[in-house]
């Protein structure tokens, strides 16, 4: 084994151990509820969001497929990713952003109403104080 191969091996082990420790810490924190997943697929109002759910499903499906395809080869090899897969994730992500934009417009309208209501209340209080 040359010096460079040894260096590569040491760096590989170091990175693997660091990632293993991080992964273990994340899983333990999630398991103990220190990382709260209750609103993982919920939007700002607390309702479950279908676009977030879809994003979650596709993320797991693509990640697990990638993992499977990498480990079945010896030596492990990263597979080519067809454009359709990118389109699939793009549609899902784009829909999530658009849905958020549409709902955000509605939320902005509601917040304007709340502000108007608050301003109205304040004006009423001022009038009462004067009288």
């Amino acid at each position, binding site marked *: 084994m040359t010096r460079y191969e040894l260096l590569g*091996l040491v760096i*590989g*082990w170091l990175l*693997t151990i660091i990632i*293993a420790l991080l*992964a273990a810490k*994340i*899983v333990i924190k*999630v*398991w103990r509820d220190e990382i709260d*997943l*209750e*609103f*993982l*697929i*919920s939007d700002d*109002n*607390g*309702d*479950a*969001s*279908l676009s977030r*759910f*879809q994003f*979650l*499903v*596709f993320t*797991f*499906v*693509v*990640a*697990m*497929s990638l*993992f*499977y*395809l990498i*480990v*079945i080869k010896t*030596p*492990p090899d990263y*597979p*080519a*990713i*067809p454009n*359709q*897969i990118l*389109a*699939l994730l793009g*549609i*899902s992500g*784009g*829909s999530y952003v*658009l*849905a958020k934009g*549409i*709902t955000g*417009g*509605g939320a902005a*309208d509601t917040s304007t*109403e709340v502000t108007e209501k608050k301003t109205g209340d304040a004006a009423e209080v001022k009038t009462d104080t004067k009288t």
Partner: protein
Amino acid sequence: MNTLFTFMRYEMFFLLASLAAIVGYRLLTGRINTKGLLTDKVTHEFSPGRLQMLIATALVAIYFIVQVLETEKMPQLPQEFILALGGSHLLYLGGKTYSVLVDKLAKIAGRINP
């Protein structure tokens, strides 16, 4: 080097499998909030558009997994699948836009004729 590869495989498997198991278990037991997943956010009624998108998502995910296991490479999804999924999303977003617009118009009408 082989030991490193084996260790990496187990490490990634442990991370993915445990995260998927935790998320799946919590989704099924209701510890991850799924309230309102199939209801319209504005009208608060059952939304067929959401149901069809949920079904389309499940079908694409199952097709994807089956193709990966059969061909042992990243699947070439048929163009029709992408179009169907895009159409499904358009339908969902159209329904969402419609309900938000209707709600806004109703509020404006309420302001004009209180």
